[in-house]
């Protein structure tokens, strides 16, 4: 049975949360309209395109990149990015010497403000358990092969500090607009389990 399977039929889960929701509304703890708002924000407004835009700007604007790496939280606020699970952001730069990758081994914390909600594999036992102890093997499963002499840094998000990887800019993209650059930035490249698309892809 996969980690992701339900043990109960979804209707039972639906009844449980509906019971909780209706009780909480009756007791004046939650506004039913707020439930819809939150789902809309996290389903439709937040997502990796936000992070991709930040990466593209960092690639295009060296001064912004310096600020981003020095104080991720403040630099993100400059471009209107802030909020829940992104209150303290650190941006990790990939270089020829260092490849970064993020995880939360204890529970699945993730930088919602720049990447939206995490994919199911990120929250799974195989990822959470293995990425800290055998990162190269896990990265290879993602098709990312790290040279033997390059350092892999795994950031375990155990406190409220959240991370985003700034991947290396693909070759052959000189003079590209931020919009064109952003299209190369995949969600996985900002987690560290992938690299950006090649220039030839677009």
């Amino acid at each position: 049975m996969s980690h992701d399977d339900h043990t109960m039929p979804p209707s039972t889960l639906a009844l449980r949360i509906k019971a909780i929701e209706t009780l909480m509304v009756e007791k004046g703890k939650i506004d039913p309209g707020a439930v819809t708002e939150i789902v809309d924000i996290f389903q439709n407004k937040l997502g990796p395109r936000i992070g991709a835009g930040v990466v593209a700007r960092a690639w295009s604007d060296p001064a912004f990149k310096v600020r981003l790496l020095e104080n991720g939280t403040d630099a993100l606020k400059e471009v209107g990015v802030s909020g829940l699970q992104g209150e303290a952001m650190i941006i990790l730069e990939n270089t020829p010497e260092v490849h970064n990758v993020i995880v939360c081994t204890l529970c699945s914390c993730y930088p919602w403000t720049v990447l939206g909600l995490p994919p199911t594999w990120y929250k799974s036992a195989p990822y959470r358990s293995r990425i800290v102890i055998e990162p190269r093997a896990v990265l290879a499963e993602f098709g990312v092969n790290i040279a033997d002499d390059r350092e892999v840094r795994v950031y375990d998000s155990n406190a409220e500090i959240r991370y985003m990887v700034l991947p290396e800019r693909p070759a052959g993209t000189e003079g590209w607009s931020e919009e064109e650059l952003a299209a190369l930035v995949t969600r996985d490249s900002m987690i560290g389990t992938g690299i950006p698309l090649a220039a030839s892809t677009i």
Partner: protein
Amino acid sequence: MRSIADMGGMQGFGPVNRAHDDTRFKAEWEAKTFAVNILSLAAGCFNIDESRYSMERMPPGEYLNTSYYEHWLYSLEDLLISKGVFSQEEYQARIAELAAKEDDHAA
């Protein structure tokens, strides 16, 4: 605590299932669980650290065999009841009421 959730470095879980690439809520109950959790935190019913601690105390077999949002649902039940926001009796009664309504509609 060295709970089942403390899984960094544990071995034997097998390959990462890359096909599980979805980020959207897979069902309405997931979306509601997410939102109700956030709103309960905002209302001060419990704090995020209590929430994580609650999930860590799920029976290990259950933790491994249920999905991420089922963990959230578990902690919502645990905390809202233990903190007296509603009672176990109220909760079970509401579930039964809603189930009966569903049966009525299905009939």
